[in-house]
């Protein structure tokens, strides 16, 4: 799961254009939305696309996204359990 978390940190920085953020800056349990990385609603939608494109997970109910994207830790756990790619 460590490799997956690293991969997710790289992807988030790239996909969401987080210019000044480095992988070392993102802690596994930091909140991604709200106070943490200050991601917004468009970022959440991009992460839903990423789940589908890179891990073959289609979110049937996008409202689930809030819980899944809480932190790198929760994302990695969800992907590990549900990935089809």
């Amino acid at each position, binding site marked *: 799961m460590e490799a997956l978390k690293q991969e997710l940190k790289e992807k988030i920085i790239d996909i*969401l254009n987080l210019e000044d953020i480095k992988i070392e800056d993102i802690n596994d349990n930091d909140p991604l939305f709200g106070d943490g990385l200050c991601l917004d609603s*468009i970022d959440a939608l991009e992460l839903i696309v990423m789940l589908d494109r890179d891990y073959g997970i289609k979110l049937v109910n996008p409202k689930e996204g809030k819980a899944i994207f809480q932190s790198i830790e929760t994302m990695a756990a969800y992907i590990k359990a549900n990935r089809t790619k």
Partner: protein
Amino acid sequence: MSENKTYIQSICMIQNNEIILDGKTILKIEPTSFSDFSKKAYQNFDVNYPKFFKMDGLSKLAFLGSELLLKKEIGETKENNIALVFSNKSSSLDTDVKYQKSISDKENYFPSPAVFVYTLPNICLGEICIRHQLRSENSFFIFEAFNPAFMINYSNILMETKKADKVLCGWVEYFDKEYKAFIYLVGKEGDFEHKIETLKTEYNK
């Protein structure tokens, strides 16, 4: 028509890896991509606004030009009512093409909301308003070429009917690596009369 004269208070021009503010070059770098150039400008002027890197080319261009003109303007006055009247030829075509590519391959079909949102030219106005907290009149127009007669009429009537105290006018063209921003602030006082000939001369410099 206007009995009330208006004046061009400051001008910012961005093209060919150069930024000129009120006739003075304040940044010029060796030819490079707009992405690179805009990043250098961002760093050079201490913009300090991470959302900048989520913007598309058109929004970055409009944002940078406006930043330089509004920075001093908004610092000095508590309340401001600065309208935004921007225009270009290509609308959001540069990003439209990028978005279209993302939906062209049916085997690899993952439309991006972060790209789609920039497929409207007025988004750049939203970015400027958010940055400077401008709750003011704004509209985006498309013309074959910069249209000073229209810009003068429209911005003047906004000020005359008190819909705005000042108007930030812009031509922000961005398509396929070619870009030009000609952004200027118009108000009720100043040294340079807001006239078609003046605008044409400045635009063509």
